[in-house]
């Protein structure tokens, strides 16, 4: 019976019409906890809460927590922090030097690459304007191409000679490729089949 009454009261609390009252009651509760509610206001709050047991419980809990916190003292450190903290304070001069060094490093990190690019540009600019420079570049590229050609030809000739002298090496290589392909096929077959069964 008592439970049913409580349930009924709870339902009453939650009707849309009373939700507005509830907000007003919460505002009164906050004022009361902040010590900004008059005696009359407090009496009014308590009067309204009599018909709302759920809110009344919440109010009781808020007051209990409020009392608990208000009775809890400002704790002092077990040790004197002064000496320990002072020992850790950075010296003003050192801070200044550190600041200057950091500033210079940040500045240098941006300026050094710019300066390097500028210097290289200045060194190269007069050379770039000379036709002899481009001619030498072209000749260098041609020589490099020729060298590359000789190297590739030598490599192919060497490989051809080797296969002529050692035909078994080719057979061995082909057999190796065959074995790899075969096992890859077997592996795929087995693994794919197993996965299909699992799914």
């Amino acid at each position: 019976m008592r439970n049913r009454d409580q349930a009924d009261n709870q339902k009453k609390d939650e009707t849309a019409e009373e939700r507005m009252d509830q907000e007003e009651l919460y505002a009164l509760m906050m004022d009361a906890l902040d010590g900004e509610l008059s005696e009359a206001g407090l009496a009014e709050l308590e009067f309204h809460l009599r018909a709302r047991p759920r809110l009344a419980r919440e109010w009781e809990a808020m007051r209990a927590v409020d009392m608990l916190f208000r009775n809890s003292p400002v704790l002092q450190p077990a040790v004197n922090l002064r000496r320990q903290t002072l020992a850790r304070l950075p010296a003003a001069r050192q801070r200044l030097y550190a600041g200057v060094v950091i500033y210079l490093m940040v500045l240098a990190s941006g300026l050094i690459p710019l300066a390097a690019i500028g210097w290289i540009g200045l060194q190269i600019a007069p050379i770039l304007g000379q036709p002899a420079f481009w001619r030498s570049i072209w000749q260098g590229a041609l020589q490099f191409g020729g060298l590359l050609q000789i190297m590739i030809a030598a490599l192919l000739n060497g490989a051809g000679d080797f296969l002529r002298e050692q035909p078994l090496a080719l057979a061995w290589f082909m057999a190796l490729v065959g074995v790899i392909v075969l096992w890859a096929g077997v592996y795929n077959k087995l693994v794919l089949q197993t996965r299909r069964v699992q799914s």
Partner: protein
Amino acid sequence: MIDEEQVWLEQARRGDKSAFGRLIEAYQGPVYNLAYRMLGNSGEAEEAAQEAFIRAYTRLDTYDPARKFSTWMLSVTSNYCVDLLRKRRTLLLSLDEPLPPHPALMSDRADNPEVQAADSEREAMVQALLEHLPEDYRQAVVLRYWYDLSYEEIADVMESSVSAIKSRLFRARRQLAEVTIEEGMFQSLQPEPE
């Protein structure tokens, strides 16, 4: 005191460590208490209080003398503690194990074991409740209850608006009430039978 404080601040700003030492002496209690309430651990709180003072010292140039030094100092401390709590959360450090009682509670009233036990129990309950709150709610609650700051001052410390602070305190109080009811923390507030 305020005039003296201004003199110490001016001297500290010029690099006078002993003047800053006087400021530490004056504020070590409030700063440590704030760190302890936020972090819930005396060792960490001492470390955080020291770090907050060092930060304050290195940032004295940014301190606006129009503001109260105490408010600025609390702001530096609470911001540092919030950073620590966020790091702690990212590292997934669990604080589920019971925290050791605060040393001050064990030594100050050691002559009366009953009072000492009651104090320890109360403090454990306070910390357990605070740990249910998210960092920003906890910050607002601690500044309101232990420092008796107005909503405007809390908003100043937390660099937020007065309405946001009111809302955080309201939600925090409701959340705390809910926890005490659910966990039956007070005898008169046992959970409602279903």
